[in-house]
């Protein structure tokens, strides 16, 4: 394939070019794959960081307009590069290292947090052919690596040697592991209709018009979607489930002792996580890159950003739950509902409701 094929706005030419790059510049066989994946990694990292900056700005504007304010207005048209300036500001901030911290754990917590969020993008299908590596355990892999965030939050809470931070980290761990179960089971409801864990297979089995999307096609798809979205909000630690960083009781939670670039990494990872759960929702429930007329990556981004918008509206509309309500909602409501949903979907699949 020539490196200049970018047909009608389809971007797979870029990935194909990156795949061919090590071959075309004549590297030895043993390092070709390494160079290729490294180039893809740097590309994905850059795009993701820019996207996270955009999401921060977008969230601030939405929050402002919900509360009848303007939000950032000064830096550029409607403050569009406000967050870029904020990032540059954080780059120049002093790194305050408290005396009593656990040095190793304190240092590595933001790195683990960001890498855990970043790893999910190995199997994320951005569009037709726009996938780094189509692992056959796709969705299981994403569920596994994104949970490493819990370890990072516990590390941050423990390493800070601060009572607020420790409480935030512990609560976050309890919350994220509790909502992990409903999230996984909601996705399994769809997986039994696909018969594969690969993200590309999941998207390709929804090709066609919107009634082929799993949210509409499988029985109880809408229920699975709603339970998934609730669990996803909790996984991403966002209001109404942001007990780990509840400002009024824990000040900032696990990241209270962090400043400068280390704080920025936690902040960035939070928005990358939000993008990840939305992208999974778009891929598994809303048909992924499938759609008419427009290039596939436009459809993927459009669907993902719609889900992101939904999460943002939920965040700025609903008040925070109390911590006991939060845990009891997960175990006494979501877990029974999702398991009942899974069994019913299995029975209907056996009866031949959908082939």
């Amino acid at each position, binding site marked *: 394939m020539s490196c200049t094929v970018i047909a009608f706005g389809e971007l797979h030419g870029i990935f194909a070019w990156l795949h061919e790059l090590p071959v075309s510049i004549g590297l030895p066989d043993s390092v070709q794959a390494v160079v290729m994946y*490294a180039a893809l990694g740097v590309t994905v990292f850059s795009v993701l960081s820019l996207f996270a900056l955009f999401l921060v700005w977008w969230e601030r504007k939405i929050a402002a307009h919900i509360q009848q304010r303007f939000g950032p207005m000064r830096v550029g048209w409607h403050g569009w590069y406000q967050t870029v300036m904020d990032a540059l500001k954080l780059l120049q901030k*002093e790194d305050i290292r408290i005396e009593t911290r656990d040095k190793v754990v304190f240092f590595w917590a933001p790195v683990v947090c960001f890498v855990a969020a970043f790893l999910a993008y190995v199997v994320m299908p951005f569009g037709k052919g726009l996938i780094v590596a189509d*692992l056959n355990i796709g969705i299981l892999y994403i569920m596994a690596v994104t949970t490493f965030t819990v370890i990072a939050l516990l590390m941050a809470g423990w390493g800070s040697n601060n009572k607020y931070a420790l409480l935030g980290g512990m609560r976050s761990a309890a919350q994220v592991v509790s909502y992990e179960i409903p999230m996984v089971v909601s996705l399994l409801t769809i*997986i039994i209709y696909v018969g594969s*864990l690969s993200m590309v297979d999941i998207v390709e089995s929804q090709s066609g018009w919107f009634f082929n999307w799993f949210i509409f096609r499988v029985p109880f798809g809408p229920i699975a979607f709603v339970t998934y979205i609730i669990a996803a909000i909790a996984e991403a630690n966002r209001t109404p489930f942001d007990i780990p960083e509840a400002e009024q009781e824990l000040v900032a939670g696990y990241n209270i002792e962090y400043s400068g670039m280390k704080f920025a*990494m936690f902040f960035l990872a939070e928005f990358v996580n939000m993008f990840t759960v939305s992208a999974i929702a778009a891929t598994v429930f809303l048909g992924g890159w499938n759609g008419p007329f427009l290039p596939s990556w436009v459809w993927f981004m459009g669907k993902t950003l719609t889900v992101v918008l939904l999460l943002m509206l939920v965040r700025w509309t609903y008040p925070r739950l109390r911590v006991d309500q939060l845990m009891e909602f997960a175990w006494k409501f979501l*877990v029974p509902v999702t*398991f009942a949903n899974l*069994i019913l979907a299995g029975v209907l699949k056996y009866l031949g409701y959908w082939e």
Partner: protein
Amino acid sequence: MSEYLAVLIFVIVGAGMVLFTFFLARILRPHNPYPEKNVNYECAELPIGNSWIKFHNRFYIFALIFVIFDVEAVFLFPWAVAYGQLGLYALVEMVIFILILFVGLVYAWKKGALKWV
């Protein structure tokens, strides 16, 4: 198997980019620590005692319940993938499996283990 190389490379690239940003910040930022600045934040009070203490029992209970259900989820993944070919036998087996665990959940519920005290 070479596809899984991508995961390893992504770990290295991700950590490398983060560490590079830290390095960049280290060049640019001021460095002026003094003892008052490096004290733990506790709402402008001097912190009393250490924070590395025993935490509440309820975290262990939820962790134990989670482990049971997470192992269940691990068993459910291969079941869900192969479900299309397995038919009625797989369905009955999995319903029995889920019901047994559900009895456990109801037991924990009745014992008050799901209550956040």
